[in-house]
């Protein structure tokens, strides 16, 4: 045996002693984690069947009606009232044994008005479409019900905007009676987000279907399916005006990067994946703009608490993933394991004192029972001292058939 053989054999045997740590993907994504919920929320995924169903404009929530009115830009569009009116008074409502939940998930401050189940639809050997099936809460039946919409967003108070296909030519707002009021658009759009005040809609456009993706083969490779962003449209619901502005992704990468509102609704931003700031801001004309304080420093979805007092952020060490930073003093509260759960990600604030998180069942000191992808929604006190499960566990959040929530203020 030559020294070459000895080295070769030694390396081969030695390498087998390496242990694969848990959570590699999570840690790599940790510094670049973006709003998974919102991201999912704007991935359109209509099948032909869904589109066909949408064209008949069924009652959004089985609330009756079913007729549609199309309002052209400039002729005004005002919802008669929220499509989803939750019962008063607002109390904590959970369904801790169900995944996805069937009962209303809500705190006195926020509610999970909707969720979607995602899946892949293969369109060729190498291509597939990410497809979503949306469920909205129906107060009349006190459960979540399937809808035909490809994309849904809910504004504070229960106003619902929808797209009927993955590259939609119009955006709809649901009325309480199940009617849909439509605004026709100059360019096809693939995402919709309500402004914080519920007065405008922000819609992102792409040159091709951004839901299309390559199928990963055994080597871990897949086709790159470019879908460069072309720009955005802001619809003003008070007057029905819709204006398109060209705006390519600042990352210069031809992939999905949906635009979203700033907390005060004066700016828009996109995910920034190449520099130290997590978000890149623009004004409503699409001109680059300085980031507001603090918000571009965090990857956590929950962001600033309602009063701006606390910022959900990355934990400073490995004893936790999520931390809540006091904006004024800089003091940090790490969300360490609580009530048998390891907290993985912040989802939304419930007031300034509680935060809704994804959490796995704690195993040992810092591990997850099963895997980190087996997780549930958990309401955690901002001091990290107490937690209440809101839903049952998703078996694997990364597998088709899993679900994602959409929260908004009540």
């Amino acid at each position, binding site marked *: 045996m*030559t020294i070459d053989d000895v080295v070769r054999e030694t390396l081969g045997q030695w390498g087998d002693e390496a242990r694969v740590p848990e959570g*590699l993907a999570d840690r790599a994504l940790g510094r670049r984690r973006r709003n998974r919920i919102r991201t999912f929320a704007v991935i359109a995924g209509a099948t032909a069947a869904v589109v066909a169903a949408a064209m008949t404009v069924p009652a959004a929530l089985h609330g009756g009606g079913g007729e549609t009115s199309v309002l052209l830009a400039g002729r005004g569009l005002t919802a008669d009232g929220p499509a989803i009116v939750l019962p008063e008074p607002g109390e904590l409502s959970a369904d801790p044994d169900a995944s996805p939940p069937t009962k209303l998930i809500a705190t006195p401050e926020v509610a999970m008005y909707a969720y979607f189940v995602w899946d892949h639809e293969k369109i060729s050997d190498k291509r597939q479409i*990410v497809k979503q099936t949306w469920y909205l809460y129906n107060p009349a039946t006190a459960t979540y019900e399937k809808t035909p919409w490809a994309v849904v967003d809910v504004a504070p108070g229960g106003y619902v905007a929808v797209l009927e296909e993955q590259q939609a030519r119009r955006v709809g707002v649901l009325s309480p009676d199940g009617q849909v009021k439509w605004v026709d658009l100059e360019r096809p759009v693939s995402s919709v987000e309500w402004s914080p005040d519920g007065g405008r809609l922000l819609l992102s456009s792409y040159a091709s279907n951004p839901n299309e*993706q390559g199928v990963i083969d055994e080597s871990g490779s897949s086709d790159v399916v470019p879908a460069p962003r072309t720009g955005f449209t802001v619809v003003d619901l008070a007057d029905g005006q819709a204006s398109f502005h060209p705006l390519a992704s600042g990352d210069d990468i031809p992939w999905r990067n949906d635009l979203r509102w700033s907390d005060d609704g004066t700016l828009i931003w996109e995910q920034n994946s190449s520099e130290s700031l997590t978000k890149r801001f623009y004004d409503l004309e699409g001109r680059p703009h300085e980031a507001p304080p603090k918000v571009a420093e965090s990857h956590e979805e929950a962001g600033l608490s309602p009063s701006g007092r606390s910022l959900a952020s990355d934990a400073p060490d490995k004893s936790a993933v999520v931390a809540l930073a006091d904006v004024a003093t800089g003091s940090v509260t790490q969300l360490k394991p609580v009530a048998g759960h390891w907290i993985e990600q912040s989802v939304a604030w419930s007031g300034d004192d509680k935060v809704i998180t994804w959490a796995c069942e704690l195993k040992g000191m810092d591990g997850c029972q099963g895997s980190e992808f087996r997780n549930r929604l958990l309401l955690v006190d901002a001091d990290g001292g107490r937690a209440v499960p809101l839903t049952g566990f998703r078996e694997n959040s990364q597998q088709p058939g899993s679900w994602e929530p959409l929260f908004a203020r009540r």
Partner: protein
Amino acid sequence: MDAAAERRFRDFVAARSPALMRLAFLLTGGDQHAAEDLLQSALAKTVARWRTVEEPEAYVRQVMYRDQVSLWRRAGSRRETAVAQPPDWAVQDATHAVDARIVVRRALARLTRRQRAVLVLRYFEDLPEAEVAAVLGCSVGTVRSTAHRSLARLRTLAPELAEPYNMIGEAMA
């Protein structure tokens, strides 16, 4: 990174992390902690470029190799010590085979990062010299001379490797 891309990334990591971790482990001379850091850093860089990376595994491997080499470059020759503390010598009454493996591992762990990277590329990855040069961003001549020096240093660190040699630790007659 959008949700679909994130899923693809997670699927990739789940499928390929054992192989990538083996590589990181060898590159760091058997230091589990340093290997995790090396791989995690490479994966984070891969996330940043995920949308444009067509061969993720090759990309991660290249980042790990180059990170090792650049560490070596930045650190300068005075820092050309192994990052890992190799295990203690086997006790005398251990089997010869175990002794031999420990001797070689200890010697590999004491090479410079660049020397070890070249040996891993040549003997673990089984890449021809030209491909090793491409991965490390150097010339074929540099690869050849580094490999030669690496093996020579191995022999110095582990005199037992003087040929002829067999893996059960007994000199061949």
